[in-house]
């Protein structure tokens, strides 16, 4: 078995900003600014960060829904950049997406059976009768009833719609699923139902998940490894246990301590991070986090720290843990 199912190498995605002035001052949004990672088959790979950090963009790049400005993505050993339209279409059968908003992810004018069946139709799989059977199977797998296939999305609750989204994603028997904030729009009790469902499906079908979320508790619960993003760059990647017990990067520490804990008597030694997240159009030089970092050193504003493995399978981009390449004071 291949040690990695998906690998990203120095991914970059820049978007031009529409300027109303002269073209000389063309600015770019550096949504993803040099990310490398590898996802192991069968794992749940968590990607956390706050709004504007680029995690959703990174997700889209990993599945090659958008082409990177630079860098490469490998699915098993194939460079997705070399895939033509036909091969990319074939790749879509292997990697699917579950979305954040169950209300806009389903066509309101399409009955849910047809929604779930559509991927099969697009890839010309099976006869009409076989597809209908598969739709019934999938509905049951996600905890709905096959006789609901003729209903329309508005007849279902948010949690049920998310199950339909999941059923559609499973229709092609993918190996990899990108879950982009799959439970963020759901109520707490429904979140728990969907999280359990996702775990069951993973075990049953041997899936690999890339799980994007801003909710650290959910990520801690379901993910095997956690990667933290800040302004388009990865700042830390570690096994879940080690990450939650002892985060290394100052931003990761702040994130973990900022998340409210459901214990009124918990110690209040919270690290409140000052300032706002800067804009990805003009990120600070060097380490993008240095203006808000309580442990910053002079070198942090000069040279960008590399994302390095400082312990086995523990990566950080911070000079607290290794020396910069050129000694500048």
């Amino acid at each position, binding site marked *: 078995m291949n040690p990695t199912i998906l690998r990203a190498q120095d991914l970059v995605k820049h978007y031009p900003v529409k300027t109303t002035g002269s073209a000389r001052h063309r600015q770019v949004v550096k949504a993803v600014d040099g990310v490398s990672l590898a996802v192991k088959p069968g794992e749940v790979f968590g990607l956390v960060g706050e*709004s504007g950090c680029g995690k959703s963009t990174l997700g889209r790049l990993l599945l090659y829904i958008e082409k990177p400005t630079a860098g490469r993505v490998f699915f098993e050993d194939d460079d997705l950049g070399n895939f033509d339209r036909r091969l990319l279409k074939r790749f879509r059968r292997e990697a699917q997406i579950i979305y954040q908003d169950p209300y806009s992810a389903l066509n309101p004018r399409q009955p849910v059976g047809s929604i779930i069946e559509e991927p099969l139709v697009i890839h010309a799989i099976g006869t009409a009768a076989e597809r209908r059977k598969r739709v019934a199977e999938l509905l049951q797998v996600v905890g709905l009833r096959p006789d609901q296939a003729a209903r329309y999305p508005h007849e279902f609750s948010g949690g049920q719609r998310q199950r339909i989204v999941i059923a559609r994603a499973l229709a092609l028997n993918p190996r990899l699923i990108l879950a982009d904030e799959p439970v963020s729009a759901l109520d707490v009790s429904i979140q*728990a139902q969907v999280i359990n469902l996702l775990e069951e499906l993973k075990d049953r079908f041997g899936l690999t998940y890339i799980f994007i979320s801003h909710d650290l508790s959910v990520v801690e619960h379901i993910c095997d490894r956690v990667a933290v993003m800040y302004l388009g760059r990865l700042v830390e990647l570690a096994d879940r246990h080690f990450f939650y017990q002892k985060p290394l990067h100052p931003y990761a520490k702040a994130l973990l301590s*900022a998340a409210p804990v*459901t214990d009124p008597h918990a110690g209040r030694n919270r690290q*409140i991070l000052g300032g706002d997240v800067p804009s990805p159009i003009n990120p600070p030089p060097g380490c993008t986090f240095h203006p808000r970092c309580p442990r910053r050193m002079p070198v942090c504003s000069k040279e960008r720290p590399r994302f390095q493995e400082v312990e086995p399978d523990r990566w950080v981009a911070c000079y607290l843990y290794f020396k910069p390449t050129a000694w500048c004071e």
Partner: protein
Amino acid sequence: MSAPILDISELTTCFATRRGPVTAVDRVSLTVNPAETLGLVGESGCGKSVTALSVLRLLPKPAGRITGGQILFKGRDIVSLPEAKMRRIRGNDISMIFQEPMTSLNPVYSVGFQIVEAIRRHRRMNRHAARQEAVRMLSLVGIPDPEARVDDYPHQLSGGMRQRVMIAMALSCHPQVMIADEPTTALDVTIQAQILDLMNRLKAEIGMAMMLITHDLGVVAETCQRVAVMYTGRIVEEADVGELFHKPAHPYTVGLFYSLPKRGGQREKLKPIPGTVPSLLRLPPGCSFQDRCFRSDDQCRQDPPWAKIGLGHWARCWHPVE
């Protein structure tokens, strides 16, 4: 112990919909004491926002109406107050902040203008003095460089800043009660921490009472002294915050806690509450939670009584969890 500053008893609010009348708030009783934060917790559709809107009489007309109960603010019933008098209370004595700061702020006016507008509505001040006050409020809520920011427009500010502006507007007339409806839900975690910290500090400095509406139990743990849990328009449990988190008694509250992934825990499978919230048009008789409850029986088809669980701790249940 001083009298509660806000005393809601048996409040009932109905909406007229095409499919019939819906009771969004069903005989809700709550008290908010001075300098205290009451958390109102529940999932979407439970009626917590409608409760807040009812207090401020901001229900959409003609569909929404308060059909019963009373709301005593400093001893005076404000349900039957004429609109002109209510307007003097709104924003002045009782103010409110909402979830989405972008849609609560008018995009075509500067934030300073909007704060000044709020100030001059209720306090006698000339424009110059009001502007100074607005700058002072912005600095109070932790906005850096307030002299410059006061002329900014909402779109020039980040989400966290906008929410601070909302808080500044709400505080500008020194209200005695602030109602905050999901004030940090739309914000990033690190910004949420800043705002919650700010709200706690301000409350301590000003001595203001607060009703905090949220679905996030973590936020409740960080900010509230007392908590009430709502389900389908009814309060199902009420307690001091420590009591509620360590000894939840109503099966719904218990279910909510079991649904939360725990931090620093072993990977236990979550135990979600089965089923979904019933439609307000088709509630079962008696306890509305019975069809999803692991402790329900035939007796639950009758309206459950308030069971005393401990000091200041009540649950509306026939079979509260020990």
